[in-house]
C-alpha cells in the first residue's frame, strides 16, 4: 500500500514571497503520478500541478513548480510570488500508473494536508 506524508500541518508566508510545501511518499511502484491539489476555504478541490514519475524534468505551472526527487521519494511544491488567493489547504496525492489487482482501480491516496496562509 502507498502512503503519502505531509509533515507541515500549517505554513504561512508574506505576499510576494516564496514558500515550499513538503511531501514524501512510500511505494514499491516504479511508475506513478504525483499531484498537488488546492482546496480553498470554499471547499472545491482543484488540481495545481501533476508530475509523472518517468519524467525527470520537474513540472511547472506558472508560479507553481515542483522538486521531484524520485530516489528520495520526495515531491515538494514551490509557490513563487505568493498571492492572497493562494491561501488554502494543499494536498499531495499519489496514484500508481496501473493499480494492478486493486479493488479501487485508479484511486488517489492523499496526504494529511498543509494549511497555507498568505499574509498581506
Amino acid at each position: 500500500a502507498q502512503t503519502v506524508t505531509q509533515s507541515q500541518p500549517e505554513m504561512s508566508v508574506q505576499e510576494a514571497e516564496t514558500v515550499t510545501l513538503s511531501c514524501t511518499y512510500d511505494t514499491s511502484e516504479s511508475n506513478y503520478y504525483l499531484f498537488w491539489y488546492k482546496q480553498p476555504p470554499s471547499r472545491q478541490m482543484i488540481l495545481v500541478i501533476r508530475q509523472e514519475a518517468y519524467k525527470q524534468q520537474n513540472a511547472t505551472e506558472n508560479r507553481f513548480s515542483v522538486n521531484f526527487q524520485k530516489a528520495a521519494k520526495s515531491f515538494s511544491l514551490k509557490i513563487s510570488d505568493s498571492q492572497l488567493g493562494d491561501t488554502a489547504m494543499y494536498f499531495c496525492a499519489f496514484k500508481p500508473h496501473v493499480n494492478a489487482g486493486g479493488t479501487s482501480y485508479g484511486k488517489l491516496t492523499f496526504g494529511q494536508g498543509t494549511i497555507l496562509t498568505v499574509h498581506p
Partner: protein
Amino acid sequence: SAVISQKPSRDICQRGTSLTIQCQVDSQVTMMFWYRQQPGQSLTLIATANQGSEATYESGFVIDKFPISRPNLTFSTLTVSNMSPEDSSIYLCSGRLAGNTGELFFGEGSRLTVL
C-alpha cells in the same frame, strides 16, 4: 476538464434518517469516486462508483450504510443511511476523464450535519 455539480451543498439531518447526495458531471467520466472529509482533514475514499453495477467499497465502508448508484457515465448518487452524529462530514464526488493521466476533478462537496 470536467465540471462536477453536487447537491445538496449542505444539510442538517436528524439521527436515524437517510440522505441522498447527487453528483452530476458535464462530461463522460470513466471513473467516479466518493470521498469523505472531516473539516480541516484529509480525504478518505468511501467507494468507486461503477456504471451499471455494484460499487466497490473501501475497507471500513459497507453498502448497507453507503449505498451508491451510477446509472450512467455522468451521474451518481451516494446515500448515507441511518445517520448518526459520527456521519457529520463533507462528502465529495470526483471523476476521472477517459484518456486522462490520472487526475481527479471534484465537486464542491456536501456538508452534512447530523443532530
